[in-house]
């Protein structure tokens, strides 16, 4: 359920900018806060940031397209990052990726049509000794197996109140 581009609350963008200070140095931090709020970077927010920081729009664009954490498409309510770092890789994370893709019926890099889940590969989540690891937002889950991963999805669906099929 993408929020229509013209519907975003520019006052909120302003408040986020005010919190970080309108120095161009703060650009990346501001973009992160915007993304935390909206789960993606709405285009009108980007041009507004450029105006407020007094920098060309293309500089904002350059930063947004460089850093992997930024997305111009809405992420799901539950943003699942699957670690595909070395340690998780040798412990067979590929199976977890496949299981989650099958279960959510999307490929990694995409969001379910109901906007609940998005699936993404991360290079290393820094909990390597617990591999395979996934993170859902700020929550980490380790020693994953296929069935444990599916249990987590079930749990998140319950949390959401979405009916189990």
């Amino acid at each position, binding site marked *: 359920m993408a929020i229509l581009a013209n519907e975003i609350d520019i006052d909120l963008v302003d408040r986020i900018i005010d919190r970080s200070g309108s120095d*161009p*140095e*703060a*650009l*990346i*931090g501001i*973009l*992160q806060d915007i993304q935390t709020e909206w789960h993606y970077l709405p285009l009108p927010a980007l041009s507004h940031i450029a105006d407020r920081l007094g920098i060309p729009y293309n*500089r904002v664009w*350059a*930063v947004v397209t*460089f*850093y*992997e*954490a*930024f997305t111009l498409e809405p992420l799901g309510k539950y943003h699942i*990052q699957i670690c595909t*770092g*070395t*340690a998780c*890789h*040798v*412990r067979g994370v*590929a*199976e977890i990726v*496949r*299981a989650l893709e*099958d279960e959510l019926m999307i490929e990694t890099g995409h969001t379910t049509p109901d906007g609940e889940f998005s699936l993404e590969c*991360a*290079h*290393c*989540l*820094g*909990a*390597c*000794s*617990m*591999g395979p*690891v996934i*993170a859902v937002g*700020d*929550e*980490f*889950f*380790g*020693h994953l197996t*296929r*069935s444990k991963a599916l249990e987590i999805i079930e749990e998140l669906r319950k949390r959401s109140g979405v009916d189990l099929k």
Partner: protein
Amino acid sequence: MIKAIVGMSTCGISAGAQQVYDKLDELHKNNPESFELCRTGCISMCYREPLVEVRNNGDRIIYGDVTPELADEIFAKHIVGGTVLDEHVACSILPDGTFVGAEKAFHGPQKRIVLRNCGTIDPESLEEYEASGGYVALRKALLEMNSGEIIQEVKNSGLRGRGGAGFPTGLKWSFAAGYKSDIKYIVCNADEGDPGAFMDRSVLEGDPHSVLEGMIIAGKAIGSSFGYIYCRAEYPMAIRRLNIAIDDAREKGYLGKNILGSSFDFDVKIKQGAGAFVCGEETALFQSIEGHRGMPRIRPPFPAEKGLWQKPTNNNNVETYANVPWIIVNGAAAYSAYGTEKSRGTKVFALAGKVLHGGLAEVPMGTTINDLVFKVGGGIKNGKKFKAVQMGGPSGGCIPSELGNTPVDFESIPATGAIMGSGGMVVMDETTCMVEIARFFLNFTQDESCGKCTFCRVGTLRMLEILTRITHGEGEPEDLDKLLELGKHIKDASLCGLGQTAPNPVLTTIRYYRDEYLAHIIDKKCPAGSCSALVDFFINPDKCTGCTICAKNCPVDAIAGEAKKVHVINNEICAKCGKCVTVCNFDAVYKK
């Protein structure tokens, strides 16, 4: 009062420490008199997480694999009843610091300098840090030493940068101290991008003040009053605890104006990364702090002369800074007593992969790979054979088990073709295919190349294409020479460390596992049984229950069998997609 201390680091929480903490919290609320509930950072033994320590004055008993139910039992029998649950004890720590009990082998070769407080104190409590000797070094450095003396002490200790390259820290500080400028900066590199590495996260989560203290001392040494910590956004807990530490340190006067009455000012700010590996390279990191794309630039000028905002800057890694307070308090000689002649002190390693005991290990430099893998790490999981250890992440290489006696230090590891790197050690067993691992790393560098220079951008893509072909069974005899030649050019001509080291994983695997490459290219076989296109799939009749799930999920109908009877895969039809392996609930499908 008896304390129950839960290991609350990201590793612990990923294993369920929060649920254990919540259980103990509930018990504590009902029995506030009987014990005190505390938290600590990483206790290092990740393989036994969740971990709970019961501390009674000098007695320290650490329970492993704690569930909420076990927490209940620990409360009733140990905390209230006074009886230790021996069968669940991972280890006990005697008042003199020695470890006894089941996991004592893990701790045997270790010496904790960087990790002195990790897993012992509450990282969110400045008082506990102070009680264990925190900010004593700062007091000494600010009130009793001048800049030259601090630098000399660090030089004498032999400390070398822990971010990968091993540049002597004291020397680096002396460069930045030597440039005159109205503003200078201290930067702490907490980007920790190497997959397989989690030392810096553990230090930040477990002992954030030690890093701050090291930075302030460095500030005094080079004449800087402002520092940045650049921490990757994937570490929310580290960032949260750093923020708490900074606030507390400001309140107590360890940060701010006129610190401890010394007339020295220093403050810090945290900057979060946004998921770009190349930002760990220092010149790219500065760009990112300034709010730009993280593109590296050619050095010189070096950061000591022109770094952040073109001002003299000293950048060190998290672990480097965490060593500094210990050195100032205990003296250079005490530090340099550990390690080898050219690599002094200790190094924290992150053990992961196919090793039995994954976790954090701090050992004197010069400890051998075998000691780390077998003594600390307890050997290989599932009784498999040790094949190689990957060190240095995407810039590093695979060191074969035959070289297991290599000491880990800044001279011996590069001699194998790998690099020390930041301390990630991913252990691989006989089922890991070395060609596939090389492809994996090239895929990583290709993904993370910032694209500024051609050799890195295009060269790594060509290498990746060749490696992918080989793992798909489409390799050609001249591929090895092509890889070696491309590798050489990319190393020589790339602009920053990312490209200059990107071929290492390929070059080391060709050097040590040429036969395995040839098996893929000539015989079209994957000896490790890992590359799907080159193996056949089988069902183990002893494990198959005839549940039919594999047959139902096979997209090409290659699996036959009746319900409740053993199924069979027809490898003539099989498309080798691996779906059957994924869906089988009984682990019955295997590759060969």
